[in-house]
C-alpha cells in the first residue's frame, strides 16, 4: 500500500511544554508566597496588588489553567497526532490555541492582582476573559475533531475519547457558570443570586475538577504510561468501562448529592449501591495504570519517568477515595471550611496533576531534542524532594483540619464554647502552617531542578523540529456497519457520531442538573425584612469582592449548635436573594462573617482593617491600608450597577437609583460621625489633615474614602433578620 508522508508538529508541543514549565514556576511561586503570608501576614503590607486575597486566586488560576492546562495541551497535541497518524488539522487553529491561551493567562496575571474578579472560585476572571476562553476552547475543539476526521488510523484510541469528553464538558460548564451582565469593562454581576449562584458555582467547581484536572490527565495516562513502560495498558476493556462510567458518574453524582432525600425508596437503594460501586471506576483506572507496569517494576527503580507516574497514579487513587468520603454528611461536617480540604486538593494537584506533568516533561524533552536527559540523578532528586514536599505539605494540613474542626466544636459543661475566641484555633495550628510552607518549598525546589535539567538537556540536544512520518491513507469503507463488524467497532471509526453521542450523553446529564437549578429561584422563601443593599453597601460589597475577603471568610453559618453559639442565628436561604454573586466562601482561615453586622462598632472595623493585630492580637489577617488612602472612592458606576441589579430582579425603584448619590452621602456622613466618637480617631484624623495640607495635597474627607463603604457593608451583613436583644 502506498504510504503518505507528513510531518508531526513538534514545535507546538515544545511551546506548550515550555509555557507549562514557565507558568508552573510562577504559579507555584505565588502559592509559596501565599503560604508564607500565613506566617508573616504583613510581608507585603500596604501593597494592594500583593495582598493575600488577590494573590490566592492568581495562584489557583495559574496552576490549574496555566501549568496543568498547558501541560494538557502539550500532551494532547503530541499524542493525538501520533495516535491518528496525521498532523494537526489546522496550523492556524494550533497557533491560535497556543497564543490565545497564553494571552488569557497574561491577562489573568495582570487583572487578578489589580482586583478585577468575579469572586467565583476557579472562575474569577472577568467577563471579557470568559468570552475569550470560550472562543479559544472552541478553536481547540475544532482543531481536535478536524484532526480526528483526517486521520490515517481507523480506530480511535481510548485516550482520545477522554480528550473529546474534556472538550465538550468544559465548554458546557464554563458557559453556564460564566453567565453574567457587564457593568463596565472589567466588572460584571452573576445572573444568579445567593443559593442559585452557589449551586451553579459548585456544579461548575466539582465538574471542573472532573473534566479539567481528571479526564484529560487520564487520557494522557493511557498514552504516556504505556509508552514510558513500553508495554500496552493492562486492560483495554477496563479502560472503556473506566471512560463511560467516569463521564457519567459526575453527571449522575450531581443530582444525586443535591436531591438525595427527594428520591423514592427504590431509587435511593439503587443509589446507595451505586455510590459504593462507583469507587470502582476511579480505582479501576488507577489499577489499570499501575498494573500497566506489571513485569516492569524493575524499570521503576531506575527510570524517573515511571517513578513520577507511579506516585501520580497513587495520588489519583487517594484523592478519588477521599472525595466520596468527604461527600458523606458526617465527614463533611468535620472537614468543610477547614484545612483538610486544602490537603485534599493538594494531593490531587501536587501528586496527580504535577507528577503526571513532570513525568511527561522528562519523557518528551529528550525525545524531541534527540538526546538523552542531561541528568537522571537530578530527575531522581526532583522525584524524591517532590514526594517529600507532598507529604510535608499534606500531612500537617490534615492535622490542622482535624484540629480546627474539633476546637470549633468543643463545649464546656456549662454550654459555652471552650475556644470562644476564633483566634485560639488559628494560633494553635501555626506550626502546621510552618510545615506546609516548608513542604511547598521542597516541592518548588524540585521544580527548579527540573527547569535546570530541561535547559541543560535542550542546550545539548538538537533544535526541536517537525518530525517526518509516513503512513498509508485510510481506505474508504462504507459509513454503514460492515457485515460481521461489531457495533462498537463501527462507532469507534465514526468520530462525528461518537462525539455527538458523547455530547448528548453529557448534555442530558447537564440538563438534568441545570433545570432544577434554574427553577429553584422561585422556591426560595422570601423574607419580608430582607431588603436590597443601599448604594454605599453595594459599593462596599464590591470592595469585599475586589479584595478577595471570601478567600478566608465564609458567610454561611451552618445549623450546628457550635456555629450558632459562635456566630449567631444560622443562615437562611432567603437572606441571599439579592446577592449577585453569592459570597459564602469555602474556607475559614478567619471567622464566618455572616452575622458580623452591628457586632462591633464602626471604629473597631476602622482600626481592624488598618491593623488587624491592633484589635485582634495574634491575628494573621493583613492590613488593608490602601482603603484609607487620601483618595475619593470611585462611584462612577453606581447607577449602572443598580440598573444591572434591577435587570437581575433586585427591586430598586427608579427613585432609588436617582437618589443613589444623595443616599450614599448621608450614610457615609453618619459613619464618619460615628468614627468621631473615638478620641484617638479624631486626633489622628486632624493630624493627617494637617499633613495633607503640608504636602500641598487636597484632603479627601474620610466619608468619601473606600474604607467607609466597606464598613457600611460589613455592618449590614446578616442584620436583616437579626433578633434584637430586649434590654
Amino acid at each position, binding site marked *: 500500500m502506498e504510504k503518505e508522508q507528513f510531518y508531526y508538529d513538534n514545535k507546538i508541543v515544545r511551546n506548550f511544554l515550555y509555557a507549562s514549565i514557565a507558568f508552573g514556576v510562577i504559579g507555584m511561586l505565588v502559592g509559596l508566597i501565599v503560604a508564607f503570608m500565613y506566617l508573616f501576614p504583613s510581608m507585603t503590607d500596604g501593597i494592594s496588588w500583593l495582598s493575600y486575597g488577590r494573590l490566592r486566586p492568581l495562584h489557583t488560576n495559574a496552576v490549574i489553567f496555566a501549568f496543568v492546562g498547558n501541560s494538557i495541551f502539550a500532551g494532547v497535541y503530541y499524542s493525538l497526532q501520533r*495516535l491518528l497518524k496525521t498532523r494537526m488539522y489546522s496550523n492556524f487553529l494550533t497557533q491560535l490555541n497556543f497564543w490565545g491561551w497564553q494571552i488569557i493567562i497574561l491577562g489573568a496575571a495582570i487583572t487578578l492582582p489589580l482586583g478585577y474578579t468575579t469572586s467565583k472560585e476557579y472562575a474569577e476572571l472577568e467577563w471579557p476573559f470568559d468570552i475569550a476562553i470560550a472562543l479559544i476552547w472552541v478553536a481547540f475543539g475544532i482543531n481536535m475533531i478536524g484532526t480526528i476526521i483526517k486521520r490515517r488510523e481507523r480506530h480511535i*484510541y481510548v485516550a482520545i475519547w477522554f480528550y473529546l469528553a474534556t472538550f465538550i464538558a468544559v465548554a458546557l460548564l464554563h458557559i453556564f457558570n460564566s453567565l453574567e451582565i457587564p457593568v463596565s469593562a472589567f466588572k460584571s454581576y452573576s445572573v444568579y443570586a445567593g443559593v442559585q449562584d452557589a449551586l451553579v458555582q459548585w456544579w461548575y467547581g466539582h465538574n471542573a475538577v472532573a473534566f479539567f484536572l481528571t479526564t484529560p490527565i487520564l487520557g494522557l495516562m493511557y498514552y504516556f504510561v504505556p509508552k514510558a513502560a513500553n508495554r500496552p495498558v493492562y486492560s*483495554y476493556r477496563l479502560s472503556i468501562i473506566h471512560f463511560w462510567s467516569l463521564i457519567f458518574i459526575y453527571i449522575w453524582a450531581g443530582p444525586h448529592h443535591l436531591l438525595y432525600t*427527594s*428520591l423514592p425508596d427504590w431509587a435511593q437503594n439503587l443509589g446507595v449501591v451505586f455510590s459504593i460501586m462507583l469507587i470502582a471506576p476511579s480505582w479501576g483506572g488507577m489499577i489499570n495504570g499501575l498494573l500497566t507496569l506489571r513485569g516492569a517494576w524493575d524499570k521503576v527503580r531506575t527510570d524517573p519517568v515511571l517513578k513520577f507516574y507511579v506516585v501520580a497514579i497513587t495520588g489519583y487513587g487517594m484523592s478519588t477515595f477521599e472525595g466520596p468520603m468527604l461527600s458523606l454528611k458526617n465527614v463533611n461536617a468535620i472537614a468543610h471550611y477547614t484545612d483538610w480540604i486544602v490537603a485534599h486538593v493538594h494531593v490531587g494537584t501536587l501528586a496527580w496533576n504535577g507528577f503526571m506533568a513532570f513525568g511527561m516533561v522528562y519523557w518528551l524533552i529528550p525525545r524531541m531534542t534527540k538526546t538523552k536527559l542531561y541528568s537522571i540523578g537530578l530527575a531522581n532528586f526532583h522525584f524524591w524532594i517532590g514526594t517529600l514536599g507532598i507529604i510535608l505539605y499534606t500531612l500537617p494540613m490534615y492535622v490542622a483540619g482535624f484540629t480546627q474542626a474539633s476546637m470549633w466544636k468543643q463545649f464546656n459543661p456549662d454550654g459555652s464554647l471552650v475556644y470562644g475566641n476564633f483566634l485560639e484555633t488559628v494560633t494553635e495550628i501555626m506550626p502546621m502552617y510552618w510545615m506546609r510552607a516548608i513542604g511547598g518549598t521542597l516541592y518548588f525546589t524540585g521544580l527548579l531542578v527540573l527547569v535546570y535539567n530541561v535547559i541543560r538537556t535542550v542546550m545539548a540536544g538538537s533544535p526541536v523540529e517537525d518530525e517526518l512520518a509516513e503512513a498509508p491513507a485510510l481506505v474508504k469503507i462504507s459509513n454503514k456497519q460492515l457485515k460481521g463488524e461489531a457495533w462498537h467497532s463501527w462507532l469507534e471509526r465514526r468520530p462525528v457520531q461518537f462525539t455527538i453521542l458523547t455530547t448528548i450523553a453529557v448534555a442530558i446529564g447537564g440538563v438534568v442538573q441545570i433545570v432544577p437549578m434554574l427553577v429553584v429561584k422561585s*422556591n426560595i*422563601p422570601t423574607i419580608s425584612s430582607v431588603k436590597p443593599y443601599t448604594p454605599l453597601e453595594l459599593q462596599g460589597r464590591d470592595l469585599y469582592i475586589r479584595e478577595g475577603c471570601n478567600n478566608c471568610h465564609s458567610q454561611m453559618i451552618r445549623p450546628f449548635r457550635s456555629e450558632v453559639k459562635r456566630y449567631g442565628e444560622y443562615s437562611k436561604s432567603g437572606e441571599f436573594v439579592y446577592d449577585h454573586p453569592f459570597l459564602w466562601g469555602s474556607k475559614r482561615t478567619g471567622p464566618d462573617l455572616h452575622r458580623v453586622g452591628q457586632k462591633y462598632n464602626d471604629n473597631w472595623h476602622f482600626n481592624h482593617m488598618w491593623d488587624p493585630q491592633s484589635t485582634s492580637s495574634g491575628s494573621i489577617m493583613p492590613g488593608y491600608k490602601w482603603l484609607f488612602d487620601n483618595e475619593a472612592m470611585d462611584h462612577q458606576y453606581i447607577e449602572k450597577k443598580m440598573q444591572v441589579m434591577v435587570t437581575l430582579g433586585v427591586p430598586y425603584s427608579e427613585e432609588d437609583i436617582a437618589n443613589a448619590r444623595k443616599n450614599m452621602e448621608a450614610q457615609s456622613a453618619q459613619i464618619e460621625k460615628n468614627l468621631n466618637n473615638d478620641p484617638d480617631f479624631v486626633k489622628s484624623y486632624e493630624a493627617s489633615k494637617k499633613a495633607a495640607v503640608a504636602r500641598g495635597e487636597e484632603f479627601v474627607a474620610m466619608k468619601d474614602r473606600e474604607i467607609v463603604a466597606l464598613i457600611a457593608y460589613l455592618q449590614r451583613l446578616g442584620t436583616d433578620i437579626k433578633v434584637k436583644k430586649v434590654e
Partner: protein
Amino acid sequence: MLKFVKHNMETIVGIEIYPIISLVLFFVIFIAFLVYAMTYSKDKIKELSQLPFKD
C-alpha cells in the same frame, strides 16, 4: 455547604424525576457499556491496546 440549601430544591414540584432520569440513564448506559466492553474479541482488544506503539 450545599446540603443546607437543598431543601429549597425539594419543594420544586416533580423534582424527583431529575435524579431518577439521571440514575436510570447512568444505570442503563453503564450496563450497556459493560456489555459493549465485554463483547470485544480478544484479538481486537489486543490490536487496540497496541495503538500507542505504532508511530
